[in-house]
């Protein structure tokens, strides 16, 4: 069989799974199922990225989204304990906002596809393939895209602070352990040796 044909079969297979699982994310009644279908969607998405030869990004997608973000989603979903959500509750109410968001997303996608992808040619992409994917990414990310890179650091810092401000509530009455103090304890602080006269039996 032709190699390109196999790649196409794999691509269409993964794309079908991706679309179906994405549909299940929004139609599944159980929120835990929704989250797990989203995991499946990320997986197939990563496979498609590999087909596009974006090796590092594809594996990083699994590492970050499947390995970290979805774990948080599952935690939250399980914590909320919504077992069966009524499917079409407030459907009409949120419809205008939904349509607006959908239009914006579609418009963005059209802009990106029509403008951005024209510049990428097969020859340009194959030039990158000679060297390692990770190397190619690293050689530009920290020099040419320095500004965006540092912005990312600030966003992450913001996320840390926001998460702590939103979720941290100190419980009262819990006992803390201070290992530093524990280590520095000397025997004489804790133990008192008392000299006593031996009792005499009369």
């Amino acid at each position, binding site marked *: 069989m032709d190699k390109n044909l196999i790649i196409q079969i794999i691509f269409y297979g993964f794309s079908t799974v991706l679309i179906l699982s994405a549909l299940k994310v929004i139609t599944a009644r159980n929120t835990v199922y929704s989250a797990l279908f989203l995991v499946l969607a990320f997986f197939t998405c990563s496979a498609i990225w590999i087909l596009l030869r974006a090796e590092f990004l594809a594996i990083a997608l699994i590492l970050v989204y499947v390995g970290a973000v979805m774990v*948080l989603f599952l*935690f939250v979903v399980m914590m909320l304990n919504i077992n069966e959500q009524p499917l079409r509750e407030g459907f009409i109410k949120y419809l205008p906002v939904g349509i607006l968001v959908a239009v914006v997303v579609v418009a963005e996608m059209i802009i990106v596809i029509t403008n951005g992808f024209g510049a990428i040619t097969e020859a340009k992409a194959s030039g990158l393939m000679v060297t390692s994917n990770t190397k190619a990414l690293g050689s530009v990310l920290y020099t040419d895209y320095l500004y965006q890179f540092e912005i990312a650091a600030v966003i992450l810092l913001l996320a840390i602070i926001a998460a702590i401000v939103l979720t941290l509530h100190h419980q009262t009455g819990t006992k803390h352990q201070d290992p530093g103090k524990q280590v520095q304890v000397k025997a004489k602080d804790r133990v008192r040796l008392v000299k006593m006269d031996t009792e005499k039996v009369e």
Partner: protein
Amino acid sequence: MLENYLPILVFIIIGIGFGIGPMMAGFILAPRKPDKEKLSRYECGFEAFEDSRGTFNIRYSLVAILFIIFDLEIAFLFPWAVVMNQLGWYGFISMSVFLGILVVGFIYEWKKGALEWE
């Protein structure tokens, strides 16, 4: 490059097979004599009072959020570590700034007591 990923795809399928196979064998070979008590969930002897999927400490989700942030940081550090030799001082300083900003966040977590498990 793509042909190197084919074994991984096959391996994942076989890995799933290694999960399904023994369980199928177990379902076929093992006896199945269910009764009400056997199928009840594991408890101390009483019936459970409530559904066990209750709310739990919010701290777990804080750990998960902090984990995402640090995981992203690792994802940024990986390509840098690979090319740091070619980037020279420029790359070194850009990463120092990045790490510096995040260390500030880490110190904030520490001082706020977010890393304290109560």
